[in-house]
């Protein structure tokens, strides 16, 4: 067990990358605390699986190094790194029984019979698969198969990190929730570092203590689920996390003030030195329908159960607002107010305001 450090990691699938666009991963520096539960969140093709495969050793990075504790493992094979990986669809050995599946990684490492028996029964109990230990693994349901492939990683008590590569893709929706809470529980019991790769924000936010959000091979923000929601460092994070995502509105800057559709908008605090094209970022949750404020026309109201999602148009710009209890009718004219401490300016995508102390 050790801390995992990625140092100046870059990877390209091309033999001779020429520009930044040829890199699937662009300069990653990251440290994963020992025993942490992490999620790697991003849309398909953002490089998260590439990063995962570099950590597990299935892929050698073009540049940079991977450290487990003090040891440089960049060139080590997967079996020399003491890692475990759970794949998108369950990988099990069809012809073996569940018990043989769980025993397999230990046997290959020459662990003695008594330890094997103890570990297997512990893990089987943890995963609640004890009663199927002697059935053939091929006949199990997908969620049980996925449990077994997790179990093959967890039986080894020396794993540095357990990695999950979108492990719930093939699981029925009603079992996803169950398996997800099982995972969380397992993390608390085994205390191993876990990295969970997904493009599903719910999975990431419920599993992880800390979420790493990636886009186009770059880490855009690392933070707790609350931080990602409350204070996105990049418009991508704001838009990707949350449903509906953050409103990103064009604006002009006049000194320290933001002008949106001709109206003065109060921001959370002073602008930073960053420059680039300015945009206002505000989550729909922080836009309220009030008696004064920005005049807007409601175009659509959707009742999603817990609240109403209001589509409105201010000047020529569309935006979304969320209202808890009541909602105006579509077509009506209303006034909107932005909550000042949640209204920020982003320049070229990156946050450009500071919170007022």
């Amino acid at each position, binding site marked *: 067990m050790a801390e995992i450090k990625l140092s100046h990691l870059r990877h390209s699938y091309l033999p001779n990358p020429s520009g930044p666009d040829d890199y699937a991963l662009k300069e990653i520096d990251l440290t994963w605390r020992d025993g942490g539960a992490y999620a790697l969140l991003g849309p398909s093709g953002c490089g998260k699986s590439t990063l995962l495969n570099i950590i*597990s050793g299935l892929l050698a990075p073009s540049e940079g190094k991977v450290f487990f504790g003090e040891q440089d493992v960049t060139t080590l094979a997967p079996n020399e790194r003491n890692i475990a990986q759970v794949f998108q669809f369950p990988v099990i*050995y*069809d012809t073996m029984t569940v018990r043989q599946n769980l025993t397999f990684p230990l046997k*290959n490492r020459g662990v003695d019979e008594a330890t094997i028996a103890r570990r297997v029964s512990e893990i089987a109990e943890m995963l609640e698969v004890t009663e199927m230990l002697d059935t053939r693994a091929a006949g199990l349901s997908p969620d049980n198969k996925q449990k077994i492939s997790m179990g*093959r*990683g967890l039986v080894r008590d020396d794993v540095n990190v357990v990695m999950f590569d979108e492990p719930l893709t093939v699981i029925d929706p009603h079992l996803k929730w169950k398996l997800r809470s099982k995972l969380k529980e397992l993390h608390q019991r085994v205390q191993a570092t876990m990295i969970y790769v997904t493009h599903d924000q719910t999975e990431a936010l419920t599993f992880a203590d800390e979420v790493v959000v990636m886009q186009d091979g770059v880490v855009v923000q690392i933070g707790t689920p609350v931080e990602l929601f409350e204070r996105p460092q990049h418009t991508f994070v704001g838009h990707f996390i949350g449903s509906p995502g953050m409103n990103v509105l064009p604006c002009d800057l006049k000194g320290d003030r933001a002008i949106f559709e001709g109206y003065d908008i109060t921001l959370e605090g002073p602008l930073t030195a960053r420059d680039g094209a300015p945009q206002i970022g505000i989550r729909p949750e922080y836009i309220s329908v009030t008696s004064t404020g920005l005049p807007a026309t409601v175009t659509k109201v959707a009742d999603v159960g817990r609240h109403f999602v209001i589509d409105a148009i201010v000047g020529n710009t569309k935006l979304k607002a969320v209202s808890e209890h009541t909602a105006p009718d579509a077509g009506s004219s209303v006034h909107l107010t932005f909550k000042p401490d949640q209204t920020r300016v982003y320049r070229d995508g990156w946050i450009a305001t500071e919170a007022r102390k």
Partner: protein
Amino acid sequence: MRTENQKAWFFVLPVLFLVAFNALLPMMTVVNYSVQETFGNNQFFWEGLDWFEQILRSERFQAALGRQFLFTGIILAIEVPLGIIIALSMPRKGFWVPVCLVLMALPMLIPWNVVGAMWNIFALPKIGMLGYFMNDVLGIHYDMTQDPLAAWITIIVMDVWHWTSLVVLLCYAGLVSIPDAYYQAAKIDAASPWSVFRYIQLPKIKTVLTIAILLRFMDSFNIYTEPFVLTGGGPGNSTTLLSIDLVKIALGQFDLGPAAAMSLIYFAITLAVSWVFYVVMTKDDQ
């Protein structure tokens, strides 16, 4: 509302006619011949099951059947492991994949009698390249026209050359369909190459391998053209396999009754062995 009518039968009917004329009727003719004696002139005499008894008791049939099982057993024992090994060592991606596939498919594209003729010329002592090389360069006595052992080796090598590709291509198709994650998981589990073969590759190619073995069994058990052109069943009767013997009885001696009985026995054996093999191979899947 679901409308029910019998129109679907019209779609099946043409196939039914075709099958009747190319399989069912000829087969029933054979059954007809197998229980009667004929001296020509369309005169038939009832014989009952006499022909069947005669064939089953005849040493000639038993010897040919023995040779047939020996031949099929040997070529399966060579072609199946060899085919798996070649399939495992073929590249999975890149420039060499189509090259390997075409080279592998090539022997199977050659007509059977051409294969026989090719190997005949190739293996003849003095004239053929192989025959000349063995006898005059290496100094090993090799004459498939005189020596039964040499004849057997030649037909077996010819069949391996001609048909191993079938096993290779089917196994290869099975192997490339295994997702990478299985190999990655095996690496992480520290599995040995043998374990990877035994627990991942073999189970995943089992279905196609079963089909490959079935096809090779049926084809080799019914083999006629290649050994007939190569050795004509000789020297003596040493390479007279079942089908060659059958043609000798039916067309050479014109003993239609015994030949028909033998055909049916031959068919029953092929069917029974294939069925038992298939049931045994697939019983785990239920």
